[in-house]
């Protein structure tokens, strides 16, 4: 995961304090994740079993795949609220399409959810409307489309293609295929974000859009691609989840966009754009899964505590960003 962190987007670090601060911002989620894994191992016998860790990794991979797309969006200075709806829509379309084979099961959600992302990106880029509103409209439209395909959510399509189901259900050493698919997407996405002109443009737009435009960065095109990627990945995650569940469950994804944004921000990406990294995002997604698992391990706590803990952690991270961001601006 080290390699996925960016060269510092701003000036090079000068003093130790700032370097420590930056380290904390970029690797904070990873450090906390490591600490929690140690704590979990010491405190609970049933935590560090292959089955349990495999479950956490597999269950977190869907959130992580969507969060990879969201990281691009947030670094570019935007937000995508439609991903939860696209996730459930993707799942329903995949289950529906599975009767025509694995290719349709995968292709249909990618085409439809990609189209949603593309249209949202075009509207945001061309009209300069706020991404918050445009993707809120996308959230409502995608969920509405899903409901209309399923008789208001009453019909659940079952996955009828074994090959497609195996993509979601297969496992290597208790870790499901979706986790490895997530790692592959992470690798490709990291190369695009860190090693290509496109990635630099995403950072540049998020840092200062007007300055980027003056420097000749293709702002509109970059934005369209960013929202297209986010839509595609949300649809893909939905399809993989449908394969795992063997059905297009209609009650998924409500409020998922907020968990995704939380994972990205906990991972060290600034909500204001211009800075962030994919490694932190994955650590953030896994961290949310580990917190949920540990709270279940404690048992006596009600599970509402998971939200309290995640919320408190998010607040700490945002405050830390603020302080670190302040330090950086002074230099």
């Amino acid at each position, binding site marked *: 995961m080290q390699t996925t962190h960016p060269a510092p987007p701003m000036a090079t670090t000068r003093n130790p304090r700032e370097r420590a601060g930056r380290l904390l911002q970029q690797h904070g989620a990873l450090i906390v994740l490591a600490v929690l894994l140690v704590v979990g191992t010491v405190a609970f016998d*049933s935590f560090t*079993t292959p*089955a*349990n860790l495999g*479950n*956490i990794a*597999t*269950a977190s991979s*869907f959130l992580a795949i969507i969060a990879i797309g969201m990281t691009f969006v947030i670094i570019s200075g935007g937000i995508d609220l439609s991903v939860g709806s696209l996730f459930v829509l993707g799942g329903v379309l995949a289950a529906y399409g599975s009767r025509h084979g694995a290719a349709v099961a995968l292709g249909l959600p990618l085409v439809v959810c990609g189209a949603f992302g593309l249209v949202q990106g075009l509207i945001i880029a061309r009209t300069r409307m706020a991404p918050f509103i445009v993707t809120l409209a996308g959230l409502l439209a995608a969920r509405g489309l899903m409901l209309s395909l*399923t*008789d*208001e*959510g*009453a019909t*659940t399509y*079952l996955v009828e293609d074994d090959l497609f*189901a195996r993509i979601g*259900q297969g496992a290597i050493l208790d870790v499901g295929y979706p986790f490895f698919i997530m790692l592959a997407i992470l690798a490709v996405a990291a190369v695009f974000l860190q090693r290509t002109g496109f990635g630099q443009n995403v950072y540049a737009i998020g840092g200062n859009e007007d300055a980027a435009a003056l420097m000749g960065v293709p702002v509109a095109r970059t934005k369209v691609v960013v929202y297209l990627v986010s839509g595609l990945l949300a649809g893909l995650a939905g399809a993989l*989840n449908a394969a*795992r*569940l*063997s*059905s297009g*469950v*209609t*009650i*998924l994804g*409500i*409020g998922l966009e907020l968990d995704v944004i939380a994972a990205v921000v906990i991972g060290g990406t600034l909500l204001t754009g211009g800075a962030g990294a994919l490694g932190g995002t994955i650590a953030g997604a896994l961290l949310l*899964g580990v917190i*949920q*698992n540990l709270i*279940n*391990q404690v*048992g006596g706590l*009600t*599970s*509402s505590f*998971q*939200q309290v803990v995640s919320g408190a952690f998010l607040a700490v991270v945002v405050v830390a960003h603020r302080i670190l961001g302040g330090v950086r601006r002074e230099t």
Partner: protein
Amino acid sequence: MSLFSGRRARAAALLAAAVLVASGCAKSEDTAASPAPGGSEAQQQVVKTPSGPAGAGCTIAQHGATKFDLKTGVVGFSQSEKEANPFRIAETQSIKDEAAKLGIANLKVTNAQSQFSKQISDVQQLIAQGAQLLVIAPLNSDGWEPVLQQAAAKKVPIITIDRKINAKHCTDYLTFIGSDFVEQGRRAADQMIKALDGKGKVAILLGAPGNNVTTERTQGFKEQIAAKAPDIEITFEQTGEFAREKGQQVTEQLIQSNPDIDGIYAENDEMALGAVTALKGAGKKAGDVKIVSIDGTRGAVQGIVDGWIYGVIESNPRFGALAFETAQKFLDGESIPEKVIIADREYDESNAEGSLSQAY
């Protein structure tokens, strides 16, 4: 006071249920016809009929599970929804109380907070923690594949309560314990027919989509209306997702679009109470619109006493005794049917005031 009488009633009901189940296996048609016992015994769940033809049951040998002692074994319970609804509170409490009573030391409880993805990981975690028996209140009927695979690999028996899982009896799950929701819908329709004298316009506040409870409560109600009272017209149907605020919101829209509505069938009490708030807000008086609902929560039974609700069909959430008793029978080698259907009571103005202490 009520706690003590509750305990005693539970013991009595346990006995009654045991007798009924035992006799039900031999001659299930007789027990199906027998009415629910009245008085304090009705507070606990009573088996109405262990359905399914003889020989279709599931024994521990057929299932492949290993026998263990409930007291020392690990038992997992997965609750589906936030405990903001009296039904869920009573259900979880009943499981916990019964486990404590039976001396089940290692009961692990999770709550999915109405998020299906979380419920799947919750149950997977319970399996990973070594659960030897799973009691699940499923949020959704489909989508259990990852859980079923892991449970099957470890031969962990699954008892689902209050909602079903769409899967194979014995290979995937042991049994479903719950009400006959179609029958609940039919009985609600009977009350509505009585309330409206067989004539009028009725709206339905549907439950959350994607589970068998909503589908069957709707089906039973519509079938009965069509068969018994063709002059009752169902003019409005919308989902209130089993939630009070959603029931209120939908009813507010209903009053706007159909001001001449005569009756509202709410598929649970929470939505009915939301509807009452909406009717009050619109300046209606108690009894102007006849409300019939299902569940039997204290708030709804109080609503009957106050005149806002016409009748309530009970859906008993106290699954603890029956769930563990079924598990014990299974471990003892008895054959367990695909469904264990419980008897539900009915509340209307004749018994609401006296039954208030038994509502949950």
